[in-house]
Each structure stands twice: as structure tokens, then as C-alpha cells.
């Protein structure tokens, strides 16, 4: 008898609670929806920052990429003159390297060279179809992607110097994190002394970047050339990055703050070369096998 009473009371209590909960949910449905949507947006942001982008983003790149291609094909005409000058300069530089400009002085050495030198880096030509320089997280879109042999983590350079690193590819487009993105870190060294550090950007001016981790005892002077170190297997060694514009050091810190004037004009990008390291996988596998021990 008593047990029954308790049971019924218990049931009514539950239904009362459920009703309250439902009322609560209905009353605050807007706030709940808001929190849910923000959580979704933050999740996408964080995944996008730290991991590969979800495949649906790749598909949307395909759509927006096509629109940007049409847009850039119109804008391109305004830059034709500048771009021609740059290409002409590059042509001259390349012509100087032609085989016909050199005399073969010793046949034996020439043959030996064929055995010693194997091609390590290959280049894929691509065109910039979208670009930004004034945001903190700048991105560049290229008109080539997976179908043309571009893969994530390949380096991107142009005739003036380094441009950035491929982050994501869709079938026909790829997205590049340029040097001027606050999340970009590129290994670079001072050409004269061979000491290397990390090139990063402070988000202020697209013409300048910072070189960190150069120890205090190294001699640095204004006008020193900064080139890629070749350690990261992304860029070949010795691609020009910029020149030292200014440097200083804080008391109590073992490293210099070095300001680099970037050699690449990010405001005016058009044709770029994507660097493919033919030995990258081999190097990566070897390096990973050591760190996993």
C-alpha cells in the first residue's frame, strides 16, 4: 500500500521534471541554437587550422575556384605589361644557363656528371587566381591541383623568391599559405654564415617578415641575404627569401630579432612554380622511423 503510493508520487515527479525541462528548452531555444551553431563554426575553424580540411571544403574550393578563375582572367589584362617584364628578365637569366653557352672542357667529367647528379626537385608551373595580403591569415589560390600533380606540403616559389607552402589541393585548384600568413613557419638561413632559424610573419606589413632563433653570438649585418635552408624537404637549399633590413636583441634573450625585407612582391603575384621534391617520401619515412623510437 505504502509502496504503491511512493511509486505513483515518484512517477508524477518524473513527468513534472520532464515538463520543466521541455519548458526550459523551449524558452531558451534561441540561445541553444546559437551555442550549437557557434560550436559548429569553431570546430570547423580549429580543424581547419590544425588538420587537413574536411573534404566538403575541398568541393567548395572547386566551386569558388572556378569563379575566381573567371575573375582573374579579366584582371590579368591590367598586369600584362608588368608580368611581361618579369618574364623577360627570367628568360634572360635562364638563357644564360643554356648548355650552348658553355664549352665542354673535358669529356670524362661530363660523363661522370651524368652519374653523380640525379634530379631531386621538379617544378610545376601554375598561375595565381586569388590572393590576399592585408589579412592576418592570407591565402593564395592556384589554378592547378591534384590532377596536375600538386600535393599538400609542396613549396611554391616565383622568379623573385619564395612564395609559400601548399596547404590543400582539390582536383583542379590548390590553396597556398604564403610567407605572409601568421601561421606560416619556414626554415631559412643567413647565406653568409649558414646559421638557420625560422621565418615567420608578425601580421603587419606584407613587405617584411621576421627571422627568429638566430643565436646571439652570430655576426649579423644589414643587407645580409637570407635564403632557404633546405632542411625541411619543402624548398631546395638557397632560394632567396629576402635581405636583413634591421635587427636588435632584448636583454635576457639569447636570440636576435631580425627584420627581413622580403624579396617576393606579394601584392603582385601571377606566375609561380610549385616545387616537388622527388625524394621527399624517402626522407620523411626515414625521419619518422627515428622519432618513433
Amino acid at each position: 500500500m505504502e509502496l504503491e503510493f511512493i511509486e505513483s508520487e515518484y512517477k508524477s515527479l518524473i513527468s513534472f521534471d520532464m515538463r520543466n525541462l521541455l519548458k526550459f528548452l523551449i524558452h531558451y531555444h534561441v540561445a541553444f541554437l546559437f551555442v550549437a551553431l557557434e560550436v559548429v563554426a569553431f570546430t570547423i575553424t580549429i580543424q581547419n587550422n590544425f588538420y587537413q580540411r574536411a573534404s566538403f571544403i575541398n568541393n567548395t574550393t572547386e566551386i569558388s575556384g572556378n569563379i575566381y578563375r573567371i575573375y582573374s582572367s579579366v584582371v590579368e589584362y591590367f598586369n600584362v605589361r608588368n608580368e611581361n617584364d618579369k618574364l623577360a628578365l627570367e628568360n634572360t637569366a635562364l638563357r644564360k644557363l643554356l648548355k650552348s653557352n658553355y664549352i665542354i672542357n673535358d669529356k670524362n667529367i661530363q660523363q661522370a656528371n651524368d652519374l653523380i647528379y640525379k634530379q631531386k626537385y621538379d617544378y610545376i608551373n601554375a598561375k595565381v587566381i586569388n590572393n590576399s595580403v592585408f589579412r592576418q591569415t592570407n591565402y593564395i589560390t592556384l589554378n592547378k591541383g591534384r590532377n596536375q600533380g600538386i600535393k599538400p606540403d609542396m613549396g611554391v616559389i616565383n622568379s623573385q623568391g619564395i612564395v609559400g607552402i601548399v596547404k590543400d589541393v582539390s582536383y583542379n585548384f590548390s590553396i597556398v599559405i604564403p610567407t605572409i600568413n601568421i601561421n606560416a613557419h619556414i626554415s631559412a638561413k643567413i647565406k653568409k654564415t649558414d646559421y638557420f632559424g625560422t621565418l615567420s610573419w608578425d601580421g603587419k606589413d606584407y613587405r617584411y617578415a621576421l627571422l627568429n632563433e638566430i643565436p646571439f653570438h652570430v655576426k649579423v649585418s644589414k643587407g645580409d641575404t637570407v635564403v632557404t635552408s633546405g632542411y625541411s624537404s619543402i624548398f631546395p637549399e638557397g632560394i632567396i627569401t629576402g635581405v636583413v633590413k634591421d635587427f636588435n636583441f632584448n636583454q635576457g634573450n639569447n636570440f636576435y630579432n631580425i627584420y627581413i625585407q622580403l624579396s617576393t612582391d606579394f601584392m603582385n603575384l601571377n606566375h609561380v612554380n610549385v616545387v616537388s621534391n622527388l625524394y621527399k617520401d624517402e626522407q620523411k619515412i626515414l625521419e619518422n622511423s627515428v622519432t618513433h623510437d
Partner: protein
Amino acid sequence: MINIIPQNIIRFFVLVFIQVVILNNLQFSGFVNPFIYILFILLLPFETPSWLLLIIGFITGLTIDIFSGTIAIHTIATTLAAYARPFVLTLFAPRDGYESRTSPTLKYYDLLWIIRYSVVIVLIHHSCLFLVEVFRFSGFFYTLLRIILSSILTSILIIISQLLFYKNK
């Protein structure tokens, strides 16, 4: 009343187009960017239910993100602005409330009201956008300067567009 929906859809496409094709490529003096697309959220009719407002804000932000390559920072900021809109409207409500079938334009309300309403929403949106974009608090005053200058520019563009399209009182 019936043509409110197509009218808003057209406005959505026009503003996204202006933002992506013109304003994203036209930055003034380095670090100031106007984000005029927030005007779409500002101009939605008063009767829009809050949940719909949130979903519209989410979709608008995501669209801009996809075309700017800045995945989800505009989504976060625009959803917040859409959430804040009903509160801002209550804050600035006229004494006898908002008349039905009117929209927050210069056609129905005076310039001072429009300025206050736009500036508050733009400030909320831009603060969220720039802070999430940097995702850290170093260089806070630099970010603050960007927020203030960009908000001023966006607000001016919004007021100009209101004067151009809704002046015939």
C-alpha cells in the same frame, strides 16, 4: 509583404558579390577592411524570428568564408551579430515599439536611430571577427585599432547605402 523574400534573396547575392569581388580586393591603407555584407543581417524585417535570424547569419557567414578562403571566422562573427540583433533592437526600441511591416531602414526611422543601431551591430561583428582571426591576445592594441578603423569604414558605407536607397521619405 509577399515580395519581401525575393527582395532579401536578391539583396543577399548583391551584397555577397560586392564583398567578395570588390571589397575583399580593395583594402584601404593596409589593414582596414570594410565588411559591408553585415548590412544584409541589419536589414532583415523586424518580424524575422530569432532562430531563423541565427540560421541566416550562419549561412551568410559561411558563404563569405568560402569565397574568402577564411573558413569559419566570418561564420562565427555573423552568427554572433545575428544573435545580438534582437537585443540591440530591444535596447533602441521607440516608446511605442516597432510598427509591424516596417524594416530597419531610413524610410521608417530617423538617421540617428539608424546610426546607433548599425554602429553597435557592426562593432560586435568586427570585434568578434578580428579577435577570432588573430586567435591570440598579443598585439591586442594593434587588433583594437583594426577593429575601430574597420568598423568606422563599414558604418560609413552602411549609412551611405541607406541614404542612397531609402532617402525618399
